[in-house]
């Protein structure tokens, strides 16, 4: 009887240990939880995808970081947006044709990380937007389709015109009452996401629009 109790005791401890250890966390890059499933859901017509990993370190280092920060209009967090953060890009294929990209970024929110996933067409126009993770008392409002759908159709140019009161971004209203910072973080994360996509995969296709907006500002 005592032996049985001891075995139970040991089993409990073992199970607790297993459980505790399984709740450890992975690296700080933002990857899709289940790429096969997630990509099929976003691009049902896709026949495959390939994954690439880039860091700012390997693609241009400090100089590139400064360039991205300038376009973003904000400095990178020295701890969590360091040069060696890996960014994963999923290039979506239909046969041999590229039909889009999926890319996520970790954006610091008020209560935790926001994982913002964007699906774009080959030109970088947003076709899908969702939060893979959001920590907020108003998380449901942020996840609401009525809010996330407002990002569909936007391009990097729209984000460069963020300050324009008549711009498309200005038309997106904060869905929350108490989490304005998370709304701002969402806009920042999405803009950063598009800038990095443009830099790493689109050969800076949207560079012209950035220069155009900047020249307008100086006029």
């Amino acid at each position, binding site marked *: 009887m005592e032996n049985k109790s001891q075995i139970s005791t040991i089993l409990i401890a073992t199970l607790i240990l*297993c459980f505790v*250890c399984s709740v450890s966390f992975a690296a700080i890059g933002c990857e899709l939880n289940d790429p096969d499933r997630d990509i099929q859901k976003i691009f049902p017509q896709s026949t495959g995808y390939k994954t690439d990993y880039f860091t700012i370190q390997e693609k241009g280092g400090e100089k590139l970081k400064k360039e991205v920060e300038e376009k973003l209009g904000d400095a990178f967090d020295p701890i969590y947006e360091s040069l060696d953060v890996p960014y994963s890009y999923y290039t979506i294929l239909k046969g041999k044709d590229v039909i889009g990209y999926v890319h996520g970024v970790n954006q610091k929110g008020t209560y935790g990380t926001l994982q913002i996933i964007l699906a774009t067409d080959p030109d970088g126009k947003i076709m899908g937007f969702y939060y893979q993770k959001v*920590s907020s008392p108003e998380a449901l409002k942020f996840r609401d389709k009525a809010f996330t759908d407002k990002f569909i159709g936007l391009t990097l140019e729209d984000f460069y015109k963020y300050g324009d009161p008549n711009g498309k971004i200005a038309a997106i209203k904060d869905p929350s009452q108490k989490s304005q910072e998370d709304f701002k973080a969402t806009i920042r994360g999405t803009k950063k996401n598009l800038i990095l996509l443009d830099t790493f995969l689109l050969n800076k296709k949207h560079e012209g629009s950035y220069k155009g907006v900047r020249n307008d500002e100086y006029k």
Partner: protein
Amino acid sequence: MNLFSVALKNLARKKVRTALTVGGVAIAIAVLVSLWGFDTGYQRSLNNDIDKMGYQVLVTAKGCPYEAATLMLQGGGGLRYMNEDVYKRISGDARIDKITPQLVATAYDPGKQSGRGGISLYMGIADSYLTLKPWSKFKSGKWFSDENALEAIMGYEVAEYEQRSVGDKILIPGRNEILTVVGIFERNGTQDDGIVFLPLKVAQKIFEVPDKLTGIGIKLKDMAQLSKFEEDLYNEPGIQIISLAQVKGTILNLVSSAKAMTNSVALIAVIIAVIGVVNTILMSVFERTSEIGVMKAIGASRLDIFRIIWVETTFICVFGGVLGNIMALLGGKTIEYILKSVLPYAPKGHLVVITPHILTLSFFGAVIMGLVAGLYPAFRASSMKPIEAIRKGE
């Protein structure tokens, strides 16, 4: 021409066949080395994990382990609680060097896994926690300002994952409680890296379990008193005593069962490799029947023939052994990655540790394998009668 160069020359005659046989031996040796490496690495990591828990004995509430595990895995609380009074009673025991109360709590986070939900882990701790874990250092920040403060200290990995710095807020999902991060621990390679710590009283309040604990960690002044101490505590109602040495033993036993199976598979691989080697060398002997006959006819002794064939077999196994060791060294990381994703409980640290001792052992194992595998073909070759051999070869 000496014996070794004759043997090497003979092996080089059928390059593909020799390469395939060497490959077979190499795979068997690589599997064997990886398994031994896993055995060493797993035990080492597990010892490290358990030592870094800081205590030798864990006191928990009584309960059915299966029920608790099921509830925990389903995302419910599932944890059994005991009264804090137990801690107060036990802490007076003169045999105790250090003791700390703990309250482990889980919260269902609907924001995890793309909105499909997941579990976040929290632990209420008291000031005494750090006395049991002197290696826990702050990367930034400090200890809680007060036992009732709505503050949190985060493990290194969870802070990184949530991008939290000292002064930031965190939300406890489901409870809608907001805490301020006052400290972040340095990475210490244990489960603590993934936990958010709260003052014990705050955790009891937030998770609505006032005056309750899930565990008491104890370190004794003298380990020799462990059995007597455990025996005395069995009289306390509603609690159970877990010696971490037993936990370690249980996990190792569980792993041993799996290891016995994989070792059997490795043994089968080695046997198949040996049969492959015997087969290859026998084929080679039969193909060279007339040649062996001529060698004997011009004066080669039975021992000479035996040695040539025996050395050929040993060479195959030695090359296979060396290649297998290289393969195991190069593939260790991959095997570790697969094991970590497959095992229900994988301790932190390297799971596959291939030591020089293992490499030496496997190399000599391969040599012995070659010597054994070569016996029969060498015997067959050396037993051939010259005239018959020359005639058969024609």
